[in-house]
């Protein structure tokens, strides 16, 4: 496998993975942003995705992570807090990793985990008035290492 250097190669590599490996790759992306949230339900879901749990374990993890994403969202009309919003996106990323197939947009949990993890970083950048960390490049590296292992 050649080194992943761009979005097209990243998507192609993710699409080439079996579902269980997509969950594992997604877990890697979420772990990178996990410090942005303090929520056991989310951390637990990432562990299940990484270890490859039973259908029951995945369902329970999904329920917890999805509930967390709803708990962390910003209510319409409420004052937005981008730090909390980062947590919301981490929860969404974790939920994607353990979601049943019909619940994941584009059918690829790793891709959904990746884009939500990037939005979490973007949210932090907005909150801190800084420049967003190039999370996509970190994800290319993580996926490359995962594919080599």
């Amino acid at each position: 496998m050649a080194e992943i250097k761009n979005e097209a190669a990243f998507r192609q590599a993710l699409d080439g993975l079996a579902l269980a490996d997509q969950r594992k790759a997604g877990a890697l992306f979420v772990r990178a942003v996990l410090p942005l949230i303090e929520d056991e339900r989310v951390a637990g879901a990432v562990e299940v995705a990484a270890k490859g749990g039973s259908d029951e374990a995945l369902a329970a993890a999904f329920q917890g992570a999805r509930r967390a994403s709803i708990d962390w969202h910003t209510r319409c009309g409420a004052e937005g807090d981008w730090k909390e919003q980062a947590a919301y996106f981490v929860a969404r990323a974790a939920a994607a990793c353990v979601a049943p197939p019909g619940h994941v947009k584009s059918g690829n949990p790793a891709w959904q985990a990746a884009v939500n993890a990037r939005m979490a970083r973007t949210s932090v950048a907005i909150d801190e008035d800084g420049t967003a960390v190039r999370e996509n490049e970190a994800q290319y590296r993580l996926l490359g290492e995962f594919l080599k292992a």
Partner: protein
Amino acid sequence: MTDRAKIAINAFKEQIDGAVSAYLSSCVHCGLCAHACLFFNETGDPRYTPIHKLEPLRRVWWSEYTLFGKLALLVGLAPKVTEELLAEWQELTYNACSLCGRCSMVCPVGNDIAGMIRKQREGMVAAGYSPDGLKGASTRAVKIGSPMGVTWKAVAAQIGHVENDTGLQIPVDKDGADYLVLMSSMEIMNYPEYLEAIARIFSEAGVSWTLSSQAFEATNSGIQIGSSDIARELVSRIVAAAEKLGVKTVISPECGHAYTALRWDGPNLIGRPYKFKARHILEVLDELRAAGKLKTEGFEEERMTFHDPCQLVRRGGVLEQPRRLVKMVVKDFVDMPEAGKMNWCCGAGGGVSAIEEAGELKLTAFNAKKRQLEAVKPDKLITACANCRIQLEEGLEENNMDIPVIGLTELLAEHLVETGKAEG
């Protein structure tokens, strides 16, 4: 009489025009509006009867504009509008009304009850009887440009995120573009996939579009809290940006009341017609579909249904467009009972979602939607309003109903035929 009560009475008087007088004098006390209201239906609380919610406005109309009322006022027998009454009615006027307009549809004498609630809010807010959540949202909307405090800096960051993920360029402040795309703060904060979907669809359709750094926010807290002054200011910003850029059409996003504010209330608020067209995103997508510029491939395999946002369908008339669009990508589509014009509100419209203390009531109101969904048992639920979407997600979660919710624009983008001809 106290100053606040006086302020409210004067503001109510300004709202009582010929139509309101006709409505209030022709009410036959039939109670049909009660059973059309999800807040009454789901709680059984008679205080939530829509016409009863209008008691402060009705008292002013009766005592000021009817013969018997004037006589009663002279001898001190007219029921008074007091601070206590206004304080009690704040909850009925805001927390327990999503301005969904279902009551107006069933009134046998044609009273626009929801329209009158909107007018009553003018008096309530003038006298200081409006919820803190809506006051905060309105203040942020005026001062910052977004009810949720979203700044252009945040939008720019999201643009960068979308450009990075898609390889597309998001046009900003492009003079003479055909379309000016607005967003809601909810989409910017909670559903960034909306902007990505727009970018991909418009790129493939080859349409000329832009965002405006001067006016990106479509929502209008002035409409929700009931302040025409605030509503006018917010609409004026969009009008100024659109006319400066010289766009042909301004697109309201997947947000219900933003569409009402921009399309129907806006020209009246600013006192003149627009120099551009105002359309909802679903209207534009349907036009692209009809012109052969929106091409999709594949179908969803699951059974899906569509939640009609009240402001879009009942109050806005955008009924067939979403169904034509849904059927492009969903074979097993089923409408819920009472879908379309008589659809049940999600429970969080009209500013209810911004009122923290209304949290429990809006989830009780969701039970109407729950029953509609149970009747058709969909695998997925589609909607076209970010506020409805989050309320649906919360309600489904609260009721342990495992039904994912997706925005229609986003669903279409999932099935978009992408040739890679991409041009921002």
